[in-house]
């Protein structure tokens, strides 16, 4: 109960700050509209207003403050505007509508999940190889690290162009970019997890004359599970980012990335922010879902107490 109160306090503080920030951010636009509508604005000359600070303008024209929260195309939309847009484009629209965020979210989510599956599979395979082969440890790990130092925003268009030229398009290129971002945390976590059994545990298996594969299935793999889930949570969030980034350079017509892009083309800030929030909520749901699966799996294994 106490923690809920603390969380709500933080949320309230953010909302208050946000409303406060809307005033100086939007005041210039509001004053232009107000002047056109015939209101008296201080100072009257647009040139003077341009050189004045937003705070000064706010003090001189405090009648305009409520309007900074109600603009059609604000620089910074107010929280309730984003909330209303989110509501209208999710609950208020048919799922099949091209303006429904559920539809766009599903387009992005499907690429995210496919990419996450590919990335996780690849990550686990690489980790198994790295743990069992010194050659792979020395040759693959440095490249895996280098791969993550390249900005994905630079790489994404190339991946899309290259795949398009060999006839692959649609969901696959986005999933590839997703996988590219999500395999890395899985590799790192799984390598650590598979190596987590200590010397004593390995010696014990040696006294049983256990084979390498028995050691893997009975000791290394189960011991790596807590590490795997920690990595998967990072991986799925990275996957979502990958899918959204994959939608940007193609000028895709569907997906949360496409909504972001269209919003910025047409100055629809409310649309941008609602797409951002949709992405954040989607990521939170995915991570929470993985947390739930983690709890169930570890509980079944008897590890979680």
């Amino acid at each position, binding site marked *: 109960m106490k923690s809920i109160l603390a969380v709500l306090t933080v949320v309230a503080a953010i909302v208050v700050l946000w409303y406060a920030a809307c005033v100086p951010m939007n005041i210039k636009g509001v004053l232009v509209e107000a002047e056109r509508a015939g209101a008296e604005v201080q100072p009257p000359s647009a040139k003077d207003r341009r050189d004045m600070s937003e705070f000064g303008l706010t003090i001189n024209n405090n009648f305009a403050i409520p309007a900074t929260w109600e603009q059609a195309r604000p620089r910074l939309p107010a929280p309730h505007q984003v909330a209303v847009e989110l509501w209208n484009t999710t609950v208020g629209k048919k799922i099949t509508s091209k303006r429904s965020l559920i539809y766009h979210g599903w387009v992005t989510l499907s690429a995210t999940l496919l990419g996450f599956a590919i990335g996780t599979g690849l990550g686990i395979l690489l980790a198994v190889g790295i743990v069992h082969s010194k050659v792979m440890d020395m040759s693959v790990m440095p490249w895996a690290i280098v791969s993550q130092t390249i900005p994905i925003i630079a790489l994404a268009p190339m991946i899309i162009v290259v795949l398009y030229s060999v006839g692959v398009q649609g969901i696959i290129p986005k999933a590839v970019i997703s996988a590219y971002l999500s395999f890395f945390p899985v590799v790192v976590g799984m390598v650590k997890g598979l190596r987590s059994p200590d010397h004593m545990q390995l010696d014990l298996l040696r006294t049983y004359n256990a084979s390498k594969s028995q050691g893997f299935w009975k000791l290394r793999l189960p011991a790596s599970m807590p590490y795997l889930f920690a990595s998967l949570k990072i991986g799925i969030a990275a996957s979502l980012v990958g899918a959204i980034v994959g939608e940007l350079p193609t000028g895709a017509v569907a997906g949360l990335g496409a909504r972001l892009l269209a919003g910025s083309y047409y100055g629809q800030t409310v649309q941008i922010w609602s797409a951002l929030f949709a992405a954040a909520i989607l990521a939170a749901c995915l991570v929470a879902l993985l947390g739930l699966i983690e709890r169930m799996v570890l509980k079944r*294994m008897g590890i979680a*107490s």
Partner: protein
Amino acid sequence: MTTENTTQPVIEARQLDLTFQTNDGPVHALKDVNLEINKGDFVSFIGPSGCGKTTFLRCIAALETPTGGSLSVNGMTPDEARRNRAYGYVFQAAGLYPWRTIAKNIKLPLEIMGYSKSDQDKRVNDVLELVDLDGFGGKYPWQLSGGMQQRASIARALAFDADILLMDEPFGALDEIVRDHLNEQLLELWARTDKTIGFVTHSIPEAVYLSTKIVVMSPRPGRITDVIESPLPKERPLDIRDTPEFIEVAHRVREGLRAGHADD
């Protein structure tokens, strides 16, 4: 050959050497170790840290490879003996898998060695009873006390019926009251199973109380300074520790340890 087997020692070390090459030069972990352990012996290895007692036990288990001399286990090389699953090994920590119940932990070696399902269940029940943990098979390790966990790990080492049991300071991390109790149980178990036991400890009372043979070792280089055949009877209640015989043996062990220290 077969007639010889009855008299042949179960474990025999002759002029055993083990030198580790480290960055600071060679370390003589074991030097000129000669020892015979016969079937049914309870042998304790005692000495200060660095004397090679654990290293010697690990050599017997083929977890370390000696650099000189000869060592045979059941008439084979230690590595052949390991591959024949000649011994069960108990480490200082119980090392139970947290994701397996006690019964499943005990099944681990049985699964690896390919015992049939029904045989596995029977053996688990037998050894759980042997270490006095019947009814705890379905519990997870974290639900058990440290002493019970160590008993479970002993049960795991006993499950596949190796006739040698090697124990590396198995009760070192437990408090004295629990340790006394486990020592008593271990003697009882030894009497019932007729196993040959190698037991590493740094506690003099524990070594004297448990053993038929006490091997006193000293460090730099790790070597045997004294081998004491215990005159105590096989039947040993806890209060045997107040008898003059017990105190005399303990005294001799202490002397041996001191002698080992005198020359450094």
